[in-house]
């Protein structure tokens, strides 16, 4: 009898705390998602409707898709394509780099291995402020391009050249080499030794034995690099002035920075562009969330 009543009491307390939990988290989730709701709504306004700056909930009377479609006209499409190619390029390069370097560092024995390991870890401590502006200066002084002479003077170098957003390889990416190396340690050597006895060379062993077994880790690397590069507005923003050679987030950066100055602004178009820029990473997140979270978790534990 007594036991029953406490059970009922416990249950009531449990239900109340659960409800509070749901209410509080729902409110928080709404706050977190609100800017995205705003973006979608505002992107479908007409300029007149949105007015000078828009309401808290700029619900359009008649949803307009003209600004969204603008992204797929020749003027808007080019930066979008650039963002895709740049993301794909760095994803492939960094994944390959992590696989190759990580494999060799984890499995092979050679002189100077410690030097490579220590260097990789040391670079992770160096703040990027030390290289940001000098890298920009260096870009402008690469010899023989953009009107530069052999001394690297006289022209603009790689500034405003499409190559400028594909060539640089920041040493921040080396963290993925380290994480791939770590994940190699949990893989037994038996498979490679068997493959080697069967006469497999370096490349065969790596790409037919190791890579298929390391697929989860490679997915973690690829997804996180892809997100980071897609959202990297700064490098294209610094190196490229011409929108047609730049990327969508960098273009957005120019538009948003200009909002701080006086002048005309077309908010609905900006928000329609935002929506397009957010969608690809949003879908990556939706379907590959597992790998993103594993990425932060492993960086958190080992980094």
């Amino acid at each position, binding site marked *: 009898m007594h036991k029953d009543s406490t059970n009922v009491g416990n249950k009531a307390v449990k239900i109340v705390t*659960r409800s509070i939990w*749901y209410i509080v988290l729902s409110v*928080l*989730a709404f*706050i*977190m998602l609100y*800017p*995205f709701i*705003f973006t979608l709504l*505002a992107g479908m306004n007409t300029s007149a409707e949105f007015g*000078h*700056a*828009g309401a*808290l909930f700029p619900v359009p009377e008649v949803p307009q898709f003209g600004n969204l479609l603008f992204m797929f006209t020749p003027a808007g499409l080019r930066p979008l394509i650039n963002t895709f190619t740049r993301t794909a390029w760095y994803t492939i390069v960094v994944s390959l780099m992590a696989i*190759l*370097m990580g494999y060799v560092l984890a499995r092979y*024995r*050679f*002189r100077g*291995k410690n030097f490579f390991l220590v260097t990789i870890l040391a*670079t992770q*401590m*160096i*703040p990027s*402020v*030390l*290289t*940001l*502006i*000098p*890298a920009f200066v260096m870009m*402008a002084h690469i010899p023989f391009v953009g009107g530069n002479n052999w001394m690297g003077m006289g022209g603009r170098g790689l500034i405003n050249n499409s190559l400028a957003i594909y*060539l640089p*390889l*920041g040493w921040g990416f080396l963290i993925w080499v380290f994480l791939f190396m770590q994940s190699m340690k949990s893989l037994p050597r038996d498979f490679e030794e068997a493959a080697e006895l069967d006469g497999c060379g370096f490349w065969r062993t790596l790409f037919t034995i190791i890579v298929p077994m390391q697929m989860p880790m490679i997915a973690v690397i690829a997804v996180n690099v892809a*997100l980071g590069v*897609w959202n*990297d*507005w700064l490098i294209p923003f610094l190196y490229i002035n011409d929108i047609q050679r730049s990327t969508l*987030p*960098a273009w*957005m*950066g120019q538009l*948003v*920075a200009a909002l*701080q100055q006086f002048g005309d602004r077309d*908010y609905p178009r900006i*928000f329609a562009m*935002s929506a397009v*820029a*957010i969608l690809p990473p*949003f879908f*990556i997140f939706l379907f590959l*969330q597992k790998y993103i*979270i594993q990425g*932060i*978790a492993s960086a*958190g*534990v080992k*980094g």
Partner: protein
Amino acid sequence: MKSKALKIRTRGWREAKIAYLILIPFFVYIAFWNLLPLILGVLLGFAEYNALSPPTWVGLRNYHRFFYSGVYLPLLWRQVWIGALCLGVNTVLSFAVALALNTNARGRGFFRASFYVPAVAAVSVTTAVFVSLLAPFGGGFNRFLTSVDMDPIIWHHSQFWMVFWIVVYFVWRAIGPASIIWLGGLQGIDPSLYEAAKVDGANFRQRVRYITLPGLRFVAAFIILTGIIGAMQMFDIILFLTAGNPFGRTDVLMFRIYRYGAVTFNLGMAGAAGTILGIVTMFFAVLYFYHMRRREEKENA
């Protein structure tokens, strides 16, 4: 006997050859794009260069100006306190979120995802929403304030409000990753420890003090360490949300370095200020690193 030794040696040589052939090209390429600018940046600090006329060597003048002109030290200090505010608020709130998400209730996956979504969108994209909402006349927030019969606030004229919104944006964007790292730490603690403590009669506070907090030490170190390095170089939010307003009172050193480097081409000063900010950042990082190490040794002893 002899042939076996030879085999091992050739095998070792083969491995070394492959390793060098892979590592050295990558290292050289990365050194070109990173080490060279690092050296160039330090050299720039000793020069005056505006990208038009050739650079001239000015010795320590840029550094002297940094410390004695009264312009740059306040910027550095502002970088530190605004960064510390962002990081502190985010660390505490993300821990609270992690505690709230550390259940097995239905829907926690959705809530976890909603906290993380802001981090997968670019800063240059999501700041537009805040700029629009904060517009002084007819912005979303002021429209709301007038609709509930309150006076509109000219956010951009107040240092307090601008810093407030910088912190809000920072936390909005960074809370997801931080709380997921916290959550990983919470779930990494062996549940049998709590059981054992309960059997030994430890109350809730003691369990938190002696099991939860020590178990989270490394996670906390990671969040704060990476947070310091990030916050000391934060300028993107400033650039897009406030542009340093009101009257340069949210201008931080990193924003100034960016402007010198890419807008006004005061490249010598950008090099000197960048070198100093980089060293200060590394100093904070190393200081914190050693602090954690010492505490750990003390507790192990």
